[in-house]
C-alpha cells in the first residue's frame, strides 16, 4: 500500500496525504478525486492516510440529527412510495428484534439474515441457517460478500472490483475441515469498470454438506475455464470463514 522508499518523491504522493488531511482547495480536491478513480496506487495511498488520520474523528462529539434527514435518504434511495409503505416489516424495533434476537425461530424464519467478517468470533451454529462470509483481499479494498441460501442450495457472490488480468478468472472454493479445497465453480469476470457484480452459483449436491459454519471460502485466480487440476493453482485473492447466526 505504501512504498517505503518512494512515498514522498513526487507531488502526487503529497497530494494523497494532503487530500486526506484536507488542506487542499476546491480545484486540487477535484484533481485528487479524479486520480482516486483512475489510479489504484494513488487511491490506496489516500486510503492509507485516511486510515492513519481517521482516529482523530473520535474526538468529535455526536449531534442529534433531525428526523427529516432519514426521510430524505429513504425517499432518494427507494422512492417516496417505499417510505409510506411502513408498518411492521420496516419498523426498526421489529427488525432489531429479529436480527439480534437469540430465538431459533426468529432466526430461522428470516431468509437471508446474517453475518459477517472473517476473523470475528461470532460463531453461532444454528442448523440450516443462512451463511454469509465476507472475503477480504489481503489488506486491499476489493472484497467479496458470499451468501449461501441453504434451501435453494445457491451461493450469491458480490464482488466489489473485478481483476483486470484478462486471462485469469476468479474461482470460488470451499475448504472444509479436512483442508482440501473443493471447487464451487468459476465466477464470471466482472465487466471492466463495473463497480459491483453479482454472480449466482449453484452448489453441487455433493458439496452442500460442506457449506457450514467454520468452513472457509476462498477465491483464487485460475486460467479461463477454471483450475485444470481440480485444486487451486493460482494466487488466492480473498478468503473468509463462514459464520452462522
Amino acid at each position: 500500500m505504501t512504498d517505503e522508499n518512494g512515498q514522498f518523491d513526487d507531488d502526487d504522493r503529497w497530494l494523497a496525504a494532503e487530500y486526506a488531511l484536507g488542506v487542499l482547495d476546491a480545484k486540487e480536491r477535484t484533481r485528487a478525486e479524479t486520480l482516486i478513480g483512475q489510479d489504484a496506487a494513488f487511491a490506496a495511498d489516500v486510503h492509507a492516510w485516511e486510515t492513519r488520520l481517521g482516529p482523530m474523528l473520535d474526538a468529535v462529539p455526536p449531534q442529534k440529527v433531525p428526523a427529516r434527514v432519514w426521510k430524505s435518504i429513504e425517499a432518494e434511495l427507494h422512492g417516496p412510495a417505499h417510505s409510506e409503505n411502513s408498518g411492521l416489516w420496516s419498523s426498526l424495533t421489529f427488525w432489531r428484534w429479529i436480527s439480534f434476537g437469540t430465538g431459533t425461530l426468529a432466526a430461522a424464519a428470516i431468509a437471508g439474515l446474517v453475518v459477517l467478517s472473517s476473523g470475528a468470533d461470532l460463531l453461532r451454529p444454528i442448523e440450516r441457517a443462512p451463511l454469509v462470509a465476507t472475503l477480504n483481499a489481503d489488506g486491499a479494498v476489493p472484497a467479496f460478500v458470499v451468501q449461501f441460501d441453504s434451501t435453494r442450495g445457491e451461493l450469491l457472490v458480490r464482488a466489489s472490483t473485478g481483476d483486470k488480468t484478462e486471462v485469469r478468472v476468479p474461482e470460488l472454493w470451499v475448504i472444509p475441515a479436512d483442508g482440501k479445497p473443493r471447487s464451487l465453480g468459476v465466477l464470471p469476470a466482472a465487466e471492466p469498470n463495473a463497480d459491483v457484480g453479482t454472480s449466482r452459483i449453484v452448489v453441487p449436491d455433493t458439496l452442500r454438506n460442506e457449506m457450514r459454519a467454520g468452513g472457509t471460502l476462498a477465491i483464487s485466480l485460475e486460467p479461463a475455464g477454471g483450475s485444470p487440476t481440480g485444486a487451486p493453482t493460482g494466487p488466492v485473492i480473498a478468503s473468509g470463514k463462514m459464520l452462522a447466526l
Partner: protein
Amino acid sequence: MDERDELSYLLARTALRDQKAFALLYERTSAKLFGVCLRILKTPSDAEEVLQEAYIKIWQNAGRYDTQVARPITWLATIARNQSLDRLRTRKLPAVEIKEGFDVPDPGPTPEQSAVLTADVVRLEACLSELDVAHATAIRRAYLDGWTYQQIADGLKVPLNTVKTWLRRSLMKLGDCLRR
C-alpha cells in the same frame, strides 16, 4: 456483539442491499457522522444535506469496507468528512472563521468525548504528541475543521510555502511514527 462487530455486520448486510440493516446502521451512526459534518460546515442546513449525501454514498459503497483496515465507525465518519470538505470548498460562504489562534493547543480527545480510547486513537495521539505543538495543532485544525494551507498560513501569519514545507515534514514524521 461489540460495536465494531455490529457495525461491520450491518455494513456487510448493507452491501447485500439489505434496507433494514441500512436503517439500523443509520440509527447507530448518524449522530456521530452529523457531528463530523457540523464541525466542518458549522451551518446545520448544510450539514443535514451533506449527511444525506454521505449515507447515499455509504449505501452505494458499503461493499468496499474492509474490516481488517479500519474500524467501521472511522470508515463511515471519513466518508462524511470528505463529503463535508467537498461542500466546504465549493460553497460561496466564507468557509471557516479563524478566531482561535495557535497559542492554545488542542488537547485531543478527552475521556468524556471518547468513551473508549481505542488502540488506533492512542497510537495517533502518541505520534501527534511527538510533533511540534503548533504543527500538531495545525494538523488537527486541518483535519477536524477543514482549514486549508492558506487559512493556516493566515492564522500563523507565515508565508504559504513555509506552511506547506513544515506541514509536509510533520506529515512525514507522523507517517513514520505510525508505521513503527
